[in-house]
């Protein structure tokens, strides 16, 4: 069944909607027809559909209230294919053929909502309800959390969202960014554009024009305002230096005019083309920013003011003018200012029936009021709507004469029926971006609004965003401000001086006397009853009663009030509620609004999808994966990989039918008995060059390097200034002034940065140059009894390098014709050679070694086997045995800390008393009583497993493996006073009721304690 557009006007003057083009869509399972240019809100209102959701706390029925991003009620879930996006505002969703939308926060359906029992028991939900109720006892929090989370749900997210929706980022630079494409923004952009500077103008809506799309009966320069908009937009779009972005919300204004905006690129299309993203995040660096963000109308606060059918007066005018939709038939207008009379005029011109206008002011006078009077529309001045009645829609209102001074009704109540109530409580300049930049706000007592103080040189607000509401003044202000700001960008940008560029165009807008009367809360005469249903923040369901309760409980600061009542903390960030809340707070405290102050607005201005923030950094592009040159070989042999920082390294190479441990055990065994080859290309490598290179290394390593002979290698330990181990590696002297340093894989970048920092900031007198060569060299490290034989087999016959190649030395030679640097160093405890070749030969070297090594049982091993091999030898891994709190002494590595050097990084810190405290955690080995039982890494050790929790912990297990060579589980641990505990028994308590693991504290070198195997 398709519903008729009962509320669509018969005319054809809509400024946005194109009635020639029908659009079919579904809402809550029903089919509807709208027109191109309709928002979901306007299309639903055209069918008389107001009710669109249930409120957050009390599940009260709520309807469409506004016409733009200020909308607090009409939150919608849009379904596309298998994905759905929640929390979109119906007032901003452009309809397209096939759109499927659903209301949110209702169960089982909109008209009958089970949770609305909350409404009947609303005394349970006063201000601070969650704080008071769920605070105690704290152990119950886990129970409460589930309840709160279900109750607080705002929409559901689809798990497959990112698979089917693409987002992207884009950087842009401009001299001037204009935020907002209304009268002020367009005028500012067009003035700036003629200087040739780069201008970006962004507007949230899909058409430029802002309120001129609504107030289209004004003239600008003696032509209809809408024509001025069209002409100006055309001019901007044809200028090569101007970027016009519609459907683009500037949601964050950050330091130095770094401005972030969300462009809805294709989400408004029925068929999203695959090559374009759904949304695009623009990151703009602008020299200057003009904030022409307009103003948002605020409602009036009275009992029952949240009923569907009560709408912002300006929104109703927008629906009439932009979409030719009149959302009611018997209409009452309730106002404290002139603007609502323009709505009345629009309703009248659209053929609508206005029951009456209720104006809080006693004796308002202006041209528009005279016009309305002449039309015969009844105006009740000095009156107020006291209460609105209705169940799921407004049906009637109570009206009384009202004195704003004493804040009370002063007559008997009369009753009047209606099905649409337009409310207008004044205008709030959209100061969010100004406030995000920490700009100060000034309260204007005449116009009753906070406006920006405009004291920054980087940005300025103009037009109604600046509290200037009359059109001619807006255009004039935009023109003048733009000229000034452009002159500050650079002197050579000149604006040709014509009447239009000096003063801006003229309009016949007659909103001359913009002076609303303050009336923050309409008193029914029985406030204790009415204030509980007088809603301030619709989205978070906070009422006037909540604010008054908070005040009584001592929450007098506006910041406290906000958090305690959650007013202004919903997804609409209090666009319609903040000022009313502050007004009520001020009145309760007998202060002025200016004295009460305002909370700070923070990004984002409108809710922003997390997918947009992530942009392209998802899936395979989430984080760069760095592969070595041998990666292809590993892959072809079915290697399993592990991530080490950004590097992806071969973890183990399972053969057919092998599981993890079987593969690792085979690799470890083969390396000890025959030979093993590991891809060590990811090790950090740094060339250290310069006359002071030796001295420099002396200062950064704990041991001596200045005396290292040319061609010799030495293991070094690097500390930070606090004496804690930072990195380790082997450094080789290639020439008197030239060293080749290696670092850990994970520490490569940090080590280079740290060494550069020292050279540039601490020791500027040292002549040393550092160059990272990590990726210049591919490294294959061959270990095991057969390693020298394999190496020999790779050499041409006249070469004989393994004789006369002592441990910890280096040679330049050729292997398989490839120029190589070979280091005789070992991380396995076996005779080993680390072969470095220019990376382009990496794969060739590896393949060649594996080919030649076949006869010698050469086995490729991965990082897991490497860990086991080094653990058997008690070699530490920085980052595993160390965690930034471990000194060389804690590792039992006193031998590497020079006693002779007068200084090195960390030396003085090691001398501190606490560094030598005997109860520090020290590195020991653990042998489990059950040789097959491998302790989980990270587990904690205790002396007595039967003590009460929390147990006294000795320390933790840093490395733990099964050693196939010892046929025994081995582990390293950092235990309090560990060095003196050798021989003691410790227990490692397990989770899930498992028996604690029993282990003996031993020396951490498990295999070949004397190190004989190094020499083959």
């Amino acid at each position, binding site marked *: 069944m398709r519903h008729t557009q009962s509320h669509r006007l018969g005319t054809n003057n809509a400024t946005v909607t194109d009635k020639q083009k029908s659009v079919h869509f579904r809402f809550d399972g029903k089919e509807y027809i709208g027109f191109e240019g309709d928002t979901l809100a306007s299309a639903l209102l055209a069918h008389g559909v107001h009710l669109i959701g249930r409120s957050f706390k009390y599940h009260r029925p709520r309807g469409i209230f506004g016409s733009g991003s200020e909308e607090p009620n009409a939150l919608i879930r849009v379904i596309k294919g298998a994905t759905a996006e929640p929390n979109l505002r119906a007032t901003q969703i452009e309809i397209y053929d096939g759109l499927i939308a659903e209301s949110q926060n209702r169960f089982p359906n909109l008209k009958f909502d089970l949770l609305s029992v909350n409404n009947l028991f609303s005394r349970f939900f006063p201000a601070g309800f969650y704080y008071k109720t769920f605070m105690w006892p704290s152990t119950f929090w886990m129970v409460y959390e589930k309840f709160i989370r279900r109750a607080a749900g705002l929409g559901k997210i689809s798990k497959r969202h990112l698979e089917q929706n693409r987002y992207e980022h884009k*950087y842009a630079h401009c001299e001037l960014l204009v935020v907002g494409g209304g009268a002020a923004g367009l005028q500012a952009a067009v003035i700036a554009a003629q200087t040739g500077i780069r201008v970006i103008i962004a507007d949230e809506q899909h058409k430029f024009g802002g309120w001129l799309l609504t107030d289209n009966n004004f003239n600008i320069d003696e032509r209809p305002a809408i024509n001025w908009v069209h002409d100006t937009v055309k001019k901007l779009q044809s200028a090569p230096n101007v970027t016009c972005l519609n459907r683009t919300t500037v949601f964050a204004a950050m330091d130095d005019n770094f401005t972030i905006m969300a462009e809805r690129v294709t989400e408004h299309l029925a068929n999203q083309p695959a090559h374009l993203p759904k949304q695009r995040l623009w990151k703009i*660096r602008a020299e200057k920013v003009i904030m022409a963000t307009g103003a948002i109308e605020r409602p009036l606060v009275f009992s029952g003011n949240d009923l569907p059918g009560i709408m912002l007066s300006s929104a109703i005018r927008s629906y009439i003018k932009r979409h030719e939709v009149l959302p009611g038939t018997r209409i009452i207008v309730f106002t404290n200012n002139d603007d609502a009379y323009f709505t009345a005029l629009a309703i009248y011109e659209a053929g609508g029936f206005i029951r009456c206008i209720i104006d809080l002011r006693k004796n308002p006078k202006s041209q528009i009021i005279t016009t309305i009077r002449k039309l015969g529309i009844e105006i009740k001045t000095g009156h107020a709507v006291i209460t609105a009645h209705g169940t799921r829609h407004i049906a009637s209102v109570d009206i009384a004469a009202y004195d704003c001074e004493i804040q009370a009704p002063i007559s008997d109540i009369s009753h009047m029926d209606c099905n649409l109530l337009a409310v207008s409580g004044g205008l709030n300049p959209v100061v969010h971006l100004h406030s995000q930049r920490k700009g100060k706000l000034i309260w204007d007592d005449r116009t009753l609004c906070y406006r920006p103080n405009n004291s920054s040189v980087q940005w300025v607000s103009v037009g109604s965003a600046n509290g200037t509401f009359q059109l001619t003044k807006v255009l004039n202000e935009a023109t003048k401000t733009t000229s000034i700001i452009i002159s500050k960008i650079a002197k050579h940008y000149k604006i040709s001086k014509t009447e239009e560029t000096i003063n801006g165009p003229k309009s016949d807008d007659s909103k001359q006397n913009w002076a609303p009367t303050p009336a923050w809360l309409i008193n029914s005469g029985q406030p204790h009853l009415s204030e509980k249903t007088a809603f301030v923040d619709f989205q978070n369901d906070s009422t006037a009663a909540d604010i008054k309760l908070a005040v009584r409980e001592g929450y007098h600061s506006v910041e406290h009030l906000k958090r305690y009542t959650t007013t202004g903390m919903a997804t609409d960030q209090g666009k319609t509620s903040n000022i009313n809340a502050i007004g009520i707070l001020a009145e309760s405290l007998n202060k002025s609004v200016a004295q009460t102050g305002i909370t700070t607005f923070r990004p984002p201005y409108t809710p922003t999808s997390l997918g947009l923030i992530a942009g392209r*950094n998802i899936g*395979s592009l989430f984080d760069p994966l760095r592969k070595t040159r041998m990666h292809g070989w590993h892959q072809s042999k079915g290697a399993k990989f592990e991530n080490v920082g950004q590097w992806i390294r071969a973890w183990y190479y399972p053969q057919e039918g092998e599981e993890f441990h079987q593969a690792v055990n085979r690799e470890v065994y083969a390396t000890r008995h025959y030979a093993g080859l590991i891809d060590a290309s990811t090790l950090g490598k740094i060339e250290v*060059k310069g006359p002071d290179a030796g001295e420099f290394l002396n200062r950064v390593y704990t041991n001596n390097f200045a005396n290292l002979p040319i061609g010799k290698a030495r293991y070094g330990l690097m500390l930070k200034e606090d004496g804690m181990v930072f990195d380790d590696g082997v450094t080789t002297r290639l020439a008197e002034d030239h060293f080749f340093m290696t670092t850990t894989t994970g520490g490569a970048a940090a080590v280079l940065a740290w060494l550069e920092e020292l050279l540039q900031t601490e020791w500027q007198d040292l*002549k040393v*140059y550092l*160059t990272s060569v990590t990726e210049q060299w591919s490294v294959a490290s061959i270990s095991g009894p057969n390693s020298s034989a394999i190496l020999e087999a790779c050499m041409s016959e006249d070469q004989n390098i393994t004789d006369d190649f002592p441990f910890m030395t280096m040679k330049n030679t050729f292997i*398989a014709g490839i120029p190589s640097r070979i280091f005789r160093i070992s991380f396995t405890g076996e005779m080993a050679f680390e072969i470095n070749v220019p990376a382009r*030969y990496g794969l060739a070297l590896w393949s060649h070694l594996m080919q030649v090594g076949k006869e010698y049982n050469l086995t490729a091993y991965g990082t897991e086997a490497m860990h086991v091999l080094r653990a058997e030898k008690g070699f530490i891994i920085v980052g595993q045995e160390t965690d930034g709190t471990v000194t060389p002494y804690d590792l039992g590595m006193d031998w590497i800390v020079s006693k002779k050097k007068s200084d090195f990084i960390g030396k003085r810190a090691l001398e501190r008393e606490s560094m030598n405290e005997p109860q520090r955690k020290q590195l020991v080995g653990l042998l489990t009583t059950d040789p097959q039982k491998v302790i989980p890494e990270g587990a904690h050790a205790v002396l007595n497993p039967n003590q009460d929790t929390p147990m006294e912990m000795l320390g933790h297990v840093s490395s733990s493996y099964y050693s196939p060579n010892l046929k025994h589980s081995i582990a390293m641990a950092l235990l309090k006073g560990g060095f003196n505990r050798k021989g003691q028994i410790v227990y490692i308590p397990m989770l899930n009721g498992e028996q604690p693991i029993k282990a003996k504290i031993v020396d951490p070198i498990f295999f070949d304690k004397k190190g004989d195997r190094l020499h083959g």
Partner: protein
Amino acid sequence: MDENTPHIAFGCAAFTDKKLPILKKPEFLTAPQIELSEIPHLGKLNIRCDSINRDEVSKLIQCNLPAEPNYMSNKAGRFAVSLGPDEYLLLAEPGSESQLEQILRSSHLLEHISVVNVSDAFCAIRLSGIKVRELLSKGCPIDLHPNNFYSNRTAQCELALANVILICLEDNEFVCICRTSFAEYVLDWCIDAGQEYGILISKKI
């Protein structure tokens, strides 16, 4: 052993392991607006020297080390990119790097300068086409407007999640130099970000 020996990797695996050419474009485009290829085995030397030695080094390598930051100078197929107040990257014809390294190492300047062969540490990717600036602006925060980033301008900057050296050769022609292990990421990112413009990855040098 020369580079033509079949088992020596020809250029960066990011390119050699892929089945090239790769073409990604929306149907309405007749031709890709961006072309991308590797410049394999380009000689690359990292040179460190103070300004006082700059002229002498320039003479030895027959290419001026640029005095101005973020610029490149080029002479007879050699390009010298400034990387810092005392740091340069020399791009030279493939195979010439060892000889250039030797010339500098054997000069009397040796004590005051540093020269390191980094030919294999970096991958040079050539990007061309009318939409190249648009593509780069999706990941590169610097101002790429032709008035600001023109022929011979260079920058060390971020390109999405990689650090790169960006060089403008001509109006629509750039070279992006990244660490070799980041080449695959840069390539995949370009393919993803460039599909709206039409992107062709080829082996053409």
